[in-house]
């Protein structure tokens, strides 16, 4: 699993509340990614990071922000959660261009 952990693994929250998901890696890789996975849409990139404090938007970034103050941690924040953000969120790292390693996922339900 390339030393990737995600927390929490499951979360139920209410519309309008802020939510922060954490991705932690133990191997100091430069590139990190946040995806969401929904039926019929597959994996879609939310934000990615190419170094400490270096982040950029992906395909579906509206309503999400990220921060990376340390190499090992990449945080995804939903400033005001909406029901459309109910999804499974995956963090990934890229060691080389050849492959990405994924974390175990966080299942988020927004009521």
């Amino acid at each position, binding site marked *: 699993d390339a030393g990737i952990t995600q927390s929490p693994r499951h979360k139920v929250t209410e519309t309008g509340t802020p939510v922060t998901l954490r991705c932690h890696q133990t191997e100091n890789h430069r*590139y990190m990614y946040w995806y969401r996975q929904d039926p019929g*849409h*597959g*994996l879609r990139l939310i934000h990615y990071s190419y170094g400490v404090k270096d982040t950029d938007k992906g395909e579906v970034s509206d309503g999400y922000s990220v921060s990376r103050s340390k190499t090992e941690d990449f945080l995804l924040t939903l400033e005001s959660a909406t029901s459309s953000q109910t999804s499974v969120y995956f963090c990934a790292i890229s060691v080389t*261009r050849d492959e*990405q*390693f994924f974390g175990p996922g966080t299942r988020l339900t927004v009521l």
Partner: protein
Amino acid sequence: SQKIEQNSEALNIQEGKTATLTCNYTNYSPAYLQWYRQDPGRGPVFLLLIRENEKEKRKERLKVTFDTTLKQSLFHITASQPADSATYLCALDEKGGYQKVTFGTGTKLQVIP
């Protein structure tokens, strides 16, 4: 617009047969294409990568082909086993850095004993 298409319908095959999954793309010029396996409740796991200048790549019972003229990759599992049952995702790179890829929606494979 860019599009990556995988058969959204599940593929059911008999154990021992060869499973063939398709990944078609439009408006991409990928330098490489990846295939991942995803089991229920888990993150995708990388299987194989094939580059644009490669026609075929093999790994044990897996074979991937890449036809940049047809804009298609085929993923084959020979001598399929029930343990091969999973969802298989293709992903194309986005030239320009940051090692980003875009994923297809995946095809669910069910190998019937």
